[in-house]
């Protein structure tokens, strides 16, 4: 249960090795934080002792975003072990290779980024509804607001995840459970290493700070940096010829 200054006791990161997920947990860590659950594809690769989030216990559990049939059981198992979930971060997601047009590769990307988000998101929502409190933080992206040639498969999976997240938030109205959809621009993480930076680039710490503020203010949507809300609002309306010229 969060306290009155919105400090969580239990945080779950689906995709626990994600730079963004880790940065957010570090930002939300406080003496109140008791347990961090890192749900990862390869638990053996993660050493709980090496993870430091204040004095919190770190629990590592297996989770594969590409296996929807397992998601309800993963969440039920986490709840059984640690009790109520205060903040759950949907942080898994793959970029895919640049210029991806291979049907099978694209389908696998969609399976992880979109289908996995839907299935795990619903499993989490069910638990938050049962608890009467809690927030699902969905790491979406501005890449889904309007897709462009250089990463349209990725962009479309984020668009799907985004629409799912905001709709889920509406369906949870009045239950005490909330969804916060985070739309970062380019973030300097392991996933984007080696790429040219886009304008309005951010660090994981910037995203984490925005998430913490968004949680305290009970926002449904957070753009990082905040100026992207206006920028993307305009870019959505740009003629195609302009949009394509902006693409790298």
């Amino acid at each position, binding site marked *: *249960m969060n306290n*009155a*200054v919105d400090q969580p006791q239990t945080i779950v990161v689906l995709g626990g090795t994600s730079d963004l997920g880790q940065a957010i947990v570090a930002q939300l860590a406080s003496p*109140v934080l008791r347990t961090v659950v890192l749900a990862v594809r390869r638990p053996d690769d993660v050493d709980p002792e090496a993870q430091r989030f204040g004095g919190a216990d770190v629990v590592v559990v297996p989770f594969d975003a590409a296996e929807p049939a397992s998601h309800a059981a993963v969440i039920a198992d986490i709840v059984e072990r640690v009790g109520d979930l205060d903040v759950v971060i949907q942080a898994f997601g793959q970029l895919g290779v640049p210029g991806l047009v291979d049907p099978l590769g694209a389908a696998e990307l969609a399976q992880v980024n979109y289908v996995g988000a839907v299935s795990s998101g619903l499993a989490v929502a069910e638990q938050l509804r049962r608890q009467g*409190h809690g927030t699902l933080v969905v790491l979406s992206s501005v890449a889904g607001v309007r897709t462009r040639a250089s990463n349209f498969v990725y962009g479309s999976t984020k668009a799907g995840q985004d629409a799912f997240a905001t709709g889920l938030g509406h369906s949870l109205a009045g239950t005490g459970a909330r969804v916060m959809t985070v739309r970062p621009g380019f973030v300097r993480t392991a996933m984007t290493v080696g790429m040219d930076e886009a304008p309005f680039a951010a660090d994981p710490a910037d995203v984490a700070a925005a998430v913490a503020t968004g949680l305290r203010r009970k926002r449904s949507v957070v753009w990082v940096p905040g100026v992207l809300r206006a920028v993307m609002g305009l870019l959505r309306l740009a003629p195609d010829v302009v949009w394509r010229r902006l693409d790298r």
Partner: protein
Amino acid sequence: MRTTRRELCGWGRTSPSVADLVDASADELTADLVSGLGAARGAIARGLGRAYGDPAQNGGGVVVRLAPGPIHLDAASGTVRVGAGVSLDELMRHIVPRGWFVPVTPGTRFVTIGGAIASDIHGKNHHADGSFGAHVERLTLFTADGAHRVVSPNDEPELWWATLGGMGLTGVIVEATVRLLPIETSRCVVDTERVPNLDALLERMESGDHRYRYSVAWVDLVARGAALGRAVLTRGDHATLAELADLDPKAAQDPLAFGPPSLVAVPPGLPNVLSRPAVRAFNELWYRKAPRFHRGVESITGFFHPLDMVGDWNRLYGRPGFLQYQFVVPFDAVDTFRSIIAMVAASGHASFLAVLKRFGPESGGLMSFPTPGWTLTLDLPAAAPGLDELLTELDRRVLSVGGRHYLAKDATTTPEVIRAGYPRLDEFLDVRRRIDPDGVWASDQARRLDLR
């Protein structure tokens, strides 16, 4: 019996959760009501929602609100048998015109008898009369097995001491028999004085409190330096008929009249209007306006419940809400106490209402808050930046001198802080486990603070 799904929070309007709110009368509290709840999210009783944090809410579970019950005044024995859903406001309207007062009243009339016992509330007379529980002869408790048990220090003493201050975690209090205070008038004779700094305040209270039943100081937590801890000290007692006739002859014509006024209600949708400059200005005016020394007559509402005149005053803090931080430290911990006040004053957080009282001996409730020492209560806007760090440091200082925090106000501490402050916590948990093995009684606070 009516059930509605509602978002519930405390008076600070923070940390809400959604539960099934069940409005029930005493005879609807049956075994059927509680069967199966232990396997689900459990249930907790809720009074008028005046606790500041999360003890009267239960996310995903059931919250039981007891309908106000009867009031049976027994003038011969000076006691009243009253339903636990009855508020102190209703009770006072009944007993004051008949020459009786509640033995302990907090700063608001809008708490229920059940809440008064479950939080073992205190008032301005703790140094003289102890907490509310000290004046309860017996109560009826609805327990997890569906029974209605009569509980008193003689019948089921373990359950008694666990229920006093037990935050509803032993069951739903159904009714109680309370010893009342006889009064001759509905007014109080009050001495008001301005005190220039903390040391003078502590000295005045220590040396003079024994002469008054009621004593409380309003402390300006914005003032710093030489004026640190400057305060307005108000002390008094119920006015006798003779005193009232002397000081306020007009009032003496209807000595037991009791008609608490309500001046205004704060509308919804306000932002936080209690900014630091606003608070500083208010505090300065309040201090300057207070007399250096004055003896006068005040009504019950004016002396005990001034904030009740402003309906929904918690809305002044806006949507982010606020929290009330109340702790006690032993009398000899004056240096730490001073450092706490200095820290709050220096922090830049605007604390609007800070109240200082002195506590007398403990009541014996296992989780009851009052213990001999200085108790300070301060309000802080919940959205203030850096608040979490300030509170963590305050917690540390309070615990370092053997102090503790009040569960009826708490919204931010941790299980470790509570364990450190309440040496009888394990005894309480033992009783809980025995009387409620399936965990029927549960609340957001119990989950947050590990009171299971």
